[in-house]
């Protein structure tokens, strides 16, 4: 095991996180006086003094940044404009809902997309193959909020099968999960197909076939692990799209997660909440990318050797 590869990747993740915090820090300062931006309009003079002291605004910029990072590490993101509640508390109530929806959507798109791609590769140029590839383009160009609204119109309003808003039961999960998953499912199928086709034409597969190897064994034991790398790449790069998409979809289905909180906070310019959510989402993205890089390293020894030696 090349420890160096994993260390390099972890270091990069830390640098990206650092850049993210620097970015948000400076965006806040470009707008002018952070105290004015972060405090509600009816704040008193004492509130201002307290806020400036808490975030060290009377100190030099570098020290301000230090205080800023320290407060974040303590989970102190300030207080919401709207109701004065602790931002950390508000977010930690909503975060599990978003993680649950995101996780299920990713699992859904992989569990459906991969087998479809494998099927398409094994039945190349058949009707099923064409159909699956057609849905890939469909998924990419369909605006996900429109798809969600269509689902509500059909399954909630006309057929009364599924609830259109909320997050209480499995039935509530179904439509938002499929809507978020749909947009990526097609592209997973498409990449799985081309990766499988690429591997299936390799000499070792032909040899296995010539030796009379069991077809299932050949596909799942020989071909799939070797096709896994491009597939993992696509899944890794699409997580960002899905997070962005889930923000919209949480609003369509009134899902009480942080995506919905983010949009309503942006609308009323509740900056402490916005800032905290952006940093948490960015952090989640960094972790997801790190996970993908680790998966690479485990899947393909060549990657961890060459990248580690750099």
């Amino acid at each position, binding site marked *: 095991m090349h420890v160096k590869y994993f260390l390099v990747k972890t270091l990069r993740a830390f640098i990206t996180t650092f850049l993210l915090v620097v970015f948000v820090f400076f965006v806040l300062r470009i707008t002018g006086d952070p105290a004015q931006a972060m405090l509600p309009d009816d704040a008193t003079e004492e509130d201002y003094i307290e806020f400036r002291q808490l975030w060290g605004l009377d100190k030099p910029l570098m020290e301000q940044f230090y205080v800023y990072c320290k407060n974040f590490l303590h989970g102190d993101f300030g207080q919401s404009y709207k109701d004065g509640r602790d931002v950390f508390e508000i977010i930690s109530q909503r975060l599990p809902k978003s993680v649950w929806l995101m996780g299920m959507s990713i699992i859904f798109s992989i569990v459906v997309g991969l087998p479809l791609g494998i099927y398409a590769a094994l039945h190349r140029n058949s009707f099923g193959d064409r159909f699956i590839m057609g849905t890939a383009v469909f998924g990419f*160009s369909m*605006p996900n909020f429109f798809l969600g609204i269509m689902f509500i119109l059909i399954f909630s309003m006309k057929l009364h099968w599924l609830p259109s808003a909320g997050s209480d039961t499995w039935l509530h999960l179904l439509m938002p999960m499929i809507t978020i998953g749909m947009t990526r499912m097609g592209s997973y199928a498409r990449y799985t197909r081309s990766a499988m086709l690429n591997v299936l034409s390799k000499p070792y597969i032909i040899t296995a076939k010539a030796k009379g190897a069991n077809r299932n064994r050949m596909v799942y034991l020989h071909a799939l692990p070797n096709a896994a790398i491009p597939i993992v790449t696509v899944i890794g790069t699409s997580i960002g799209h899905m997070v962005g998409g889930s923000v919209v979809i949480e609003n369509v289905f009134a899902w009480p997660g942080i995506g919905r909180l983010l949009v309503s906070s942006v609308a009323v310019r509740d900056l402490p909440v916005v800032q905290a959510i952006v940093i948490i989402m960015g952090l989640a993205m960094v972790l997801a990318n790190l996970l993908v890089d680790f998966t690479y390293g485990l899947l393909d020894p060549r990657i961890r050797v060459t990248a580690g030696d750099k």
Partner: protein
Amino acid sequence: MMSDNVKNEKVKFEVLSGVVGQETKLQKVFRKVPPMIMLCMAWLLFMFIVAVFWEQFAPFDYEEQDLANRLAVPKIFGGTDTTHFLGTDSLGRDFLSRLIRSIRTSLLVAFCGTIITAILGTALGFVAAHFRGWVDEAIMMMVDFQYSLPFMILALLVIAFFGNNLVFFVFLLGIEGWNKYARMSRGMALSAQNNGYAVAIRQLGASPVRLYTKHILPNVSNILIVELTLNFPAKILAETSLSFLGLGIQPPDTSLGSLLSFGRAYMMTNWWLAVIPGLTIFLTTLSMCLLGDWVRDTIDPTIRK
């Protein structure tokens, strides 16, 4: 693949040199276009014409309210209203006129955003490739950073802090996807630098700006055009998503996203107020994606997947 390439070159040669007559030349070009792509082109052309001549097409003023005639059901959807082809919205405004105005706004904003992204991303990629060293490192670090922060989240952050107006919004959309152009143009410029022609032009004393814009850019334009056609639908989706959330195009102006968002509330009775804008977005992005895929396969057979 190779024979395809040769055939393409031959057709290109014949077309360019005028060996083939006027009519057969067109026929040759069109014979190669699949019917599906023809449909996509027709739809996009239609959208383009609507966007450019929107004032001539709109039967009413898109802002004019008629509170006595709210949510009118048009004849084609089984109603009684014959003056408004697609009925009226919740404030009695002519829906067809609003749809036409929205098409114009959405396409215009997406188009400007696409151009800004292409220029910004390509320029940064060239700068990184030209200066190398720490400039290169810094730009590539920004590219990596952009990959880890979804555009949607970035846009919401910026809108929350700086507020929103049309020009600002267009430039914000211009950030979406710049990292892809930068990464691509940097790679292509790096390989072009070592090509004979670039070395020769540099030694003849051409300035770097001239070298990149007049010589390297035309040589890499094929791949950039492909990226352009794939970036445009992404722009439409980004704009309509933000407008759908009420954070993009602001009233009194209207975009396909905000139209859909307003139509949502009346889905039980006037379903077309939400479905028609949605379908318009879908058909436009779908046409552009299919066209982009086809252009990629036709322009350069070597980058075929």
